[in-house]
């Protein structure tokens, strides 16, 4: 990275102080004009999954608050009779090595001057390649629109010197916005504080620049395994393996050429 690294910004989502108010979801929808995530029949759906009726990130949900009700062993109890409630606001990770951006065939997905990953909707032709490429299941095709949509980290607000809508709306500072380096330092000391206070399961997710996506611009402090929150435990950017994939394809292509040639050898037999 060159100059951009000095201005790379991100989100540190500290789930230990999330109260599940969903102000982030609402602020995001309001600011970005994100439509309702309607079902195929045009109605809403109650998921019956605690307080979560958003379900997951998608074309029409750029922030998603997860609610996890846990009845664990007594030593897990935070003084609540063996019950605890995990809440976490998920968002696009804006990966350092972003598979969606790598595979986009139109150049619609780009890296911005803030180190974020954004879809240019005037260019996207809805090929759908970014959707299975994302190891987090973040980006999706909008029903009735055909194009791929996801969090822009409020690119327009950043350009105007403002913080993203979700971070601005968050009443507990569970969602913190700022220069990525600063956030990583702050997050590391927050984990230390929590662990010293006896929250032994506190861990950072996505803060390591040496992980499978070379670090995420949006990273998290979690209180349980990532998969409990619907996050992949060890995401890897698929394009890391691209050279070996092309080598295998070249070998198969060579075999095909040889095979066809061989089929013509010894004409006249049989």
């Amino acid at each position, binding site marked *: 990275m060159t100059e951009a690294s000095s201005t790379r910004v991100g989100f540190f989502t500290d789930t230990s102080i999330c109260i599940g108010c969903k102000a982030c979801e609402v602020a995001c929808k309001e600011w970005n004009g994100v439509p309702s995530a309607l079902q195929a029949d045009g109605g809403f759906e109650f*998921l019956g*999954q605690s307080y*979560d009726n958003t*379900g*997951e990130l*998608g074309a029409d949900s750029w922030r998603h608050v997860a609610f996890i009700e*846990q009845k664990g062993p007594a030593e897990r109890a935070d003084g609540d009779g063996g019950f605890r409630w995990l809440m976490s606001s998920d968002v696009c990770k804006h990966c350092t090595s972003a*598979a969606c951006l*790598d*595979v*986009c*065939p*139109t150049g619609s997905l780009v890296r911005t001057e803030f180190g974020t990953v954004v879809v240019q909707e005037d*260019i*996207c*032709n*809805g*090929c*759908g*390649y970014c*959707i*299975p*490429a*994302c190891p987090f*299941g*973040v980006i*999706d095709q909008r029903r009735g*629109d*055909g*194009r791929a949509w996801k969090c822009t980290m409020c690119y327009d607000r950043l350009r105007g010197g403002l913080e993203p809508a979700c971070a601005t709306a968050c009443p507990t500072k569970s969602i913190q916005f700022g220069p990525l380096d600063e956030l990583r330092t702050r997050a590391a000391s927050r984990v230390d504080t929590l662990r010293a206070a006896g929250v032994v399961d506190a861990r950072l997710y996505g803060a390591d620049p040496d992980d499978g996506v070379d670090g995420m611009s949006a990273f998290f402090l979690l209180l349980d*395994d990532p*998969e*409990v929150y*619907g*996050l*992949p*435990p*060890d*995401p890897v950017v*698929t*394009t890391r*393996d*691209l050279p070996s*994939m092309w080598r*295998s*394809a*070249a*070998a*198969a*292509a060579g*075999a*095909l050429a040889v*095979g*066809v040639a*061989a*089929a013509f050898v010894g*004409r*006249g*037999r*049989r």
Partner: protein
Amino acid sequence: MTSPPPGPGPGPVRTYYGRPVLKRPVWKWYIPAYFFTGGIAAGSALLAAGGRVTGDDRLARRCLVASSAAVATSGVLLVADLGRPERFLNMLRVAKVTSPMSVGTWLLSAFGTATAAATVSELTGRGRRTGRVAEAVAALLAPAMATYTAVLVADTAVPAWHDARHELPFVFAGGAAASAGALAVLMVPESAAARRLAVGGAAVELAAAEVLERRLGEVGEAYHRGRAGTLKRLATAAGGTGGTLLAVAGRRRRAPQVAGALLVLVGAAAERFAVFEAGVESAIDPAFTVGPQSHRLAAESLAR
């Protein structure tokens, strides 16, 4: 959320209400259908070149026409699958080596142009030399045409595709040879080369698919479940029976030849749809994402 944490081996995984981690691929049936027609286009261009070189102009001519028809169908399928079909030309505004779809777009454009030019020249008798050059260009690009689609699906986070990245190109190359060979058997019954290509291609396709499933371990399960499993069994039965029929029918017995060729075509098509459905299956079941990843992490922490 009280299920036990994953052990070092296969076992129950923890998830968020059992919801998928990955998004379901939005590609419709057009895409696996394109894998099939693209394979036929590529294999037919190679057969045409082989026919030309060995003096079998009838084989060359018919395979060229087949290749053109298949590549035209491919283009229609690909544009139809777009969320914004009217923007298909946006594919040509950049060339990106990190995107197999971008590479494939340029490849398909060049291959399609060459095949079409060669076919027009062949059918009209005009521009013979240009036509021959175009034919050669098409044949040179054909092996890449037949295999890049395997890289396209493998270059995703979908476990049943990504983990199969080293076998899928051979499955697709075998399928291209099998289907183009089988089609040529129907068009030019006396061609021994077409028959051999169909038989050999089907054998390679089925063998590569077998290796793929064995090597994939827990993720290989996606190839046995639901629609993927049904299509897989159809592919194996049709490809195996068709290939055997073609192998024993020889050049004279027409009925088993035709039956064998049709079965090989069905098998090659079913194989592509099976691969596609297995990917979808592995994307929508979080166990395929969470299981292998947490086992990998557990193994790494043991190694430290």
